[in-house]
């Protein structure tokens, strides 16, 4: 099996491969295995196809391209309210089952003061419970009881776009210039859910579509290409206006 030390970012690992020379922490002599890796006796086995990533000192995971979301605790997601069932809302977050969202887990919601949520609304929420054996549970408040940006979004128009999970991780990474560059040219508001949904609202519909197209096109671009695309967009937009 190929060694990951050296030019590791180019090697594709397939399910069934073994990762060798896994660095362990000096204190605990443990390594942290992320998605796509599994311990198999004394070895580390790959379970998903993709590129091996390593973060010093001892964190490993497989960077895999997939479109289906598997809920992870603590991640922020965008969901669509599908039904009201007693004191919870059923929210579709793209996972294998619908998540539940209690009406009490909104800012300043009480038993008497119910939040204004309708079927079909889009909510930005955090996963409080995400376990393979249990139904995922969402909340729209943080631990201090504040909404901190979460709650119902998209009441004033805008567009919800579904893309691959890899693109989401890419545009949310700190070294990706896409959103900040686009924002310089066209003012817009956006919400990005880790489950592959992006909500965008700009001043006009044309601008919203432009932003969505730019995001969709950036999936297979590197940073230089993204910057040049944003420049081109700016030029065309100033010409039109």
């Amino acid at each position: 099996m190929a060694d990951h030390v050296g030019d590791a970012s180019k090697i594709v690992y397939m399910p069934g491969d073994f990762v060798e020379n896994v660095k362990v922490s000096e204190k605990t002599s443990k390594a942290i295995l992320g998605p796509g890796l599994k311990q198999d006796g004394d070895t580390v086995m790959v379970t998903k196809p993709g590129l091996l990533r390593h973060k010093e000192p001892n964190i490993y995971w497989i960077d895999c391209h997939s479109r289906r979301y598997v809920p992870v605790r603590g991640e922020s997601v965008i969901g669509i309210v599908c039904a009201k069932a007693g004191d919870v809302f059923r929210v579709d977050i793209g996972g294998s089952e619908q998540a539940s969202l209690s009406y009490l887990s909104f800012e300043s919601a009480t038993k008497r003061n119910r939040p204004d949520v309708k079927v079909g609304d889009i909510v930005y929420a955090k996963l409080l419970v995400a376990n393979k054996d249990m139904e995922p549970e969402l909340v729209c408040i943080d631990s201090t009881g504040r909404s901190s940006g979460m709650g119902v979004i998209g009441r004033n128009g805008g567009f919800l776009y579904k893309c691959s999970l890899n693109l989401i991780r890419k545009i949310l990474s700190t070294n990706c210039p896409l959103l900040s560059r686009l924002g310089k040219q066209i003012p817009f508001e956006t919400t990005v859910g880790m489950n592959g949904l992006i909500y965008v609202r700009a001043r006009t519909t044309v601008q919203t579509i432009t932003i969505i197209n730019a995001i969709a096109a950036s999936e297979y671009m590197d940073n230089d290409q993204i910057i040049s695309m944003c420049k081109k967009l700016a030029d065309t937009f100033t010409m039109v206006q």
Partner: protein
Amino acid sequence: MKMSEQKSGSQNVLRLMVCEMAHLSRPDGSATTFQGDTCVMTSVYGPTEVRMAKEQIDRTTVEVVYKPKSGLPSCAEKSLENIICNTCENILLGNAHPRSAINITVQEVQDSGSFTACCINCCCLALLDAGIGMKCTMAAVNCCIDNEENIIVDPTRKEEEQSQAVLTFAFDSKDKNIITVITKGKYSQQQFQKCLVLCRDASDSVFKFYRETMEKKLSKT
């Protein structure tokens, strides 16, 4: 959109394999695989919601639907579905997503021999594209024994029809162990062993092809 090709080197090797991945927009994973003129299109959804009746509390339910080129599926098609389903269940990490389903749809495009093998290989590629957790990959190779008792690996449809026995083997990538064997016709024990060895050797090139296809898919980023 991705095309990968595999050139055959020595004799007794597989026909040209070509694969296009992620060309369907709705499914979580999809692949169209050519093996010579044989062509299969597969889509994978998963892990998704599962019907109450089929829900398993400790493992993923794998459902395979086979769509023939024309007409309704009959017994033979149902049997093929079963074979593919059991083969896939063997390599998938079943307990990673309990109470969910993985739906695989296999569409026949062109059957020009070695069809079962192509179906299984296409399923494996679609599962790889969907990024579903697996213990290992699987490769199926078909061979037939003609009337002069020659063994032909990856035969065409004509060769299959004129043969006395057709054997299909599916191997895992780890130890090249047999996952599935499907045989039709009359053959001796020695012939079976000989076919097994030939197919096992040929499976290497299928595994190599999988790796190349994934490398090409991931090289875009």
